[in-house]
């Protein structure tokens, strides 16, 4: 349901059909794997079977000798390393680590770490040839948890790495470890006086919480096809959230100008943060250069699970202090997130988000980025926030119980508001945390009785808040008029969640024309200005501002043309609601003027390249009822309501879809999804049969309540919506399990095995 307010706009807030819908539902849309080019070769990657091993030798001669194999490459074929930092939009990484992730040089650091690549005339030949590459390893002991990684005497992944590699601490020499460490970096946030805050507290609650690594679960595996043209230019076709990030990274790696690399964004079958960096594109490009032919690469599902980055497994120790009246006075936390084999977990975001739903005057958060022999963690929908929020929201649940308070009323009492300081000390802009909490308390779900389960299972209800910053950043949009009054709108933002429709709607709104007059298309990197990734919940906001600015640019040019026709000053022409008006009562609609553009100087283009920095933060409040089978430990979600401040729902159906998708993924992290490793560091559930994502049969219809507190820094009040709905489910479900069973699940997922053990213990 949507809040019962009349849309203030003509197009924004309506629910038109998406322009890419027909192609997608009929199977005609072209995804990365659909590429087929004349003379194309098929590339494959040989991956390490070991989690931690030294490479003693690689012999590719037998593979190269196989009929049909055209090229075999290893780390030796990559260019040299440098200290450059590469920006993938949702993460950054030193170039040297990107090279090591492309192909290992001296050591393999996780099962699935690429060791060599090859291409052949046939995919089956390529597959067969992998087994002919002979690699001799010296197997080393792996570290598989943050606890093992930080223990004295732990095997070191990167010899020579002190405690600060990726993000240098501020003062050189200060706080540096004198010995090699698997702690890649540390971030400390503080505001107020935490010690004094806890001194002031009547109640102090503390707990330890753990979560497992979870994959983004996009249905389309990674693909990448490259053709190095004889003229030296390179074209890459890929399903990526960030075509420009791919372009810039590959250009840097291969030492060629960015202008010589064109990345063609294919339709994308999900990304959720996991498709913002190159995995196979550099190898495909190098092999294309060596062979002079296009090279297509793709992962199978096992490779996706072992070879790409899931979100971190985490450990959080958290403490809160409150007065007897429920007022929060202090918070403290230590976070240790698995980065995987290379630095760069989302622990920083977890640290900054975890307390942000509340006004806590004294905070200290210590965040550690910890290396383990697992795939490099990568962005996954609100990266880092769900895990840390789970800790805070679990303690708040305990606080409500201790004080015999309604859990939502306690939260609302402490809600963050405009001006509230976050853990990093910055103040909140205009936000809708209080409105979101109130809408949750007013919801039919929260006001309903829990009832009794007919099957005799234990039932319970849980709630949780969630916060995400949302993002701005660079976006470009170009709009071209046609003589019939239609507009072609070129976008740099890849369409994952309805961006074509949502941006065309904002453009139409700004132009005062109909949605059906605008034909949006996502174009390649040669045809549009730099546009950051489709991620960070940034597109509707930042690219929305780009299309708005492009519309304003177009209106200015239209006014000049109308002035030419009416022989008046340009300043005397106004544009509103799709109509131009002159100083002497002249009037002309947008289509009418478009019909006259060709005789007044030609069709026009409105363009904008923007980099806005005032995204409206997002808040969500979730309510969930669960049933727990005492005999099996299985948890069923009976009812789920997701309340969220969305700023303005540009296309409410797509917003509701984003919210429901986030809930489903968060429920998976809460209940079933986890990477399971053998003691040797091999993933034992690397298939979607064994890595258990929720299906539509596992979840009820997720009720959505859209709260609209406009972002004042956007003409239509848009806030990002895509990420925050994955934040609350972990804690909400854990709290519901506690309500049902009296068992506090401090380790997720609450799988049947784990929960049954706890039930039997009790």
């Amino acid at each position, binding site marked *: 349901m949507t809040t019962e307010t009349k849309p203030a706009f003509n197009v924004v807030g309506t629910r038109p059909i998406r322009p890419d819908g027909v192609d997608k539902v009929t199977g005609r849309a072209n995804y990365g794997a659909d590429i087929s080019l004349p003379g194309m070769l098929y590339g494959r990657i040989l991956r390490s079977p070991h989690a931690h091993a030294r490479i003693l030798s690689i012999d590719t001669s037998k593979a190269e000798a196989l009929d049909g194999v055209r090229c075999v490459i290893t780390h030796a074929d990559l260019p040299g390393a440098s200290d450059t*930092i590469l*920006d993938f*939009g*949702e*993460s*950054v990484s030193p170039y040297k680590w990107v090279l090591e992730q492309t192909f290992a040089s001296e050591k393999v650091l996780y099962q699935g770490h690429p060791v060599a690549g090859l291409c052949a005339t046939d995919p089956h030949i390529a597959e067969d040839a992998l087994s002919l590459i002979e690699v001799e390893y010296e197997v080393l002991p792996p570290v598989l948890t943050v606890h093992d990684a930080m223990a004295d005497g732990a095997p070191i992944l990167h010899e020579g790495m002190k405690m600060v590699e*990726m*993000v*240098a*601490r*501020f*003062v*050189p020499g*200060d*706080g540096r470890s004198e010995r090699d460490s698997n702690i890649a970096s540390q*971030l*400390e*946030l*503080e*505001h107020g006086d935490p010690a004094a805050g806890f001194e002031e507290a009547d109640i102090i609650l503390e707990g330890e919480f753990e979560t497992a690594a979870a994959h983004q679960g996009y249905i389309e595996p990674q693909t990448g096809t490259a053709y190095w043209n004889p003229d030296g230019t390179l074209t890459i076709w890929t399903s990526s959230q960030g075509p420009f990030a791919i372009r810039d990274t590959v250009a840097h790696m291969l030492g060629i100008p960015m202008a010589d690399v064109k990345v063609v964004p294919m339709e994308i079958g999900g990304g959720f*943060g996991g498709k913002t960096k190159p995995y196979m594109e550099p190898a495909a490009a190098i092999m294309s250069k060596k062979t002079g032919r296009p090279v297509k690469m793709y992962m199978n599902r096992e490779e996706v699970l072992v070879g790409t980055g899931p979100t971190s497994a985490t450990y959080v120790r958290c403490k809160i202090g409150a007065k007897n009246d429920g007022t929060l006075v202090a918070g403290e936390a230590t976070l240790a997130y698995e*980065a995987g084999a290379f*630095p*760069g*977990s*989302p*622990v*920083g*975001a*977890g*640290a*900054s*988000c975890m307390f942000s739903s509340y006004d806590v005057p004294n905070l200290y958060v210590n965040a550690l*980025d910890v290396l383990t022999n697992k795939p490099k*963690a*990568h*962005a996954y929908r609100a*990266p*880092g*926030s769900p895990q840390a929020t789970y800790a805070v929201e679990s303690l708040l649940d305990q606080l409500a119980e201790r004080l015999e308070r309604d859990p939502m009323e306690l939260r609302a009492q402490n809600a963050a508001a405009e001006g509230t300081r976050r853990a*990093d*000390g*910055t*103040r*909140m*802009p205009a936000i809708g945390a209080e409105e979101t909490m109130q809408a949750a308390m007013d919801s039919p779900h929260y006001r309903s009785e829990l009832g009794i389960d007919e099957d005799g299972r234990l039932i319970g209800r849980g709630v949780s808040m969630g916060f995400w*910053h*949302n*993002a*701005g*950043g660079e976006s470009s949009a170009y709009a071209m008029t046609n003589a019939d009054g239609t507009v072609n709108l070129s976008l740099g933002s890849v369409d994952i969640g309805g961006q074509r429709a949502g941006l065309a709607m904002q453009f139409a709104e700004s132009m005062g024309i109909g949605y059906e007059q605008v034909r949006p298309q996502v174009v390649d990197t040669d045809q549009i200005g730099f546009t950051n990734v489709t*991620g*960070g*919940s*940034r597109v509707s906001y930042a690219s929305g501002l780009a299309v708005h600015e492009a519309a304003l640019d177009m209106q200015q040019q239209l006014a000049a043309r109308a002035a030419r026709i009416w022989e008046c000053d340009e300043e005397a022409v106004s544009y509103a609601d799709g109509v131009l008006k002159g100083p002497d009562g002249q009037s002309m609609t947008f289509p009418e003027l478009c019909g006259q553009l060709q005789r007044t100087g030609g069709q026009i283009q409105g363009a904008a390249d923007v*980099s806005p*920095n*005032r995204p409206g933060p997002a808040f969500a409040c979730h309510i969930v009822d669960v049933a727990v089978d005492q005999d099996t430990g299985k948890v069923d979600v009976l009812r789920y309501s997701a309340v969220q401040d969305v700023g303005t729902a540009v296309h409410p159906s797509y917003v509701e879809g984003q919210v429901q998708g986030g809930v489903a993924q968060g429920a998976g992290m809460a209940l079933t999804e986890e990477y399971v490793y053998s003691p040797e560091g091999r993933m034992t559930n690397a298939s979607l049969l064994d890595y258990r994502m929720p299906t539509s049969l596992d979840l009820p219809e997720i009720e959505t309540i859209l709260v609209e507190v406009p972002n004042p820094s956007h003409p239509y009040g848009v806030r990002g919506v895509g*990420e925050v709905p994955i934040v609350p489910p972990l804690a909400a479900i854990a709290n519901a399990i506690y309500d049902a069973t009296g068992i506090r699940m401090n380790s997720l997922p609450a799988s049947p095995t784990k929960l049954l053990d706890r039930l039997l213990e009790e």
Partner: protein
Amino acid sequence: MSGDLTVFVPIGMRPLTGGLRTVSASGATISQVIDDLESRYPGFHMSLVEEGRLKSSLTIAVNSVEQPLGLLARVPKGAEIHIIQAMAGGKC
């Protein structure tokens, strides 16, 4: 010299300020503010600036708004300035 700006000093930089959590500063741009801080708390410049640019691992917020322009960002009178470590995976 002190100014009308308030700079919130992150924990890692407090050795430079003798443990002070906030210090005053002056300047019309972030670059000028850092120069002012460097004059009184040596070490600020090398901690924040690399090859003439704000370190890629850092973000500056002026009145709680992150500044993509970095050193070039304008600073209004009376502003609060926060020095924030960039967040892996969370620059969004």
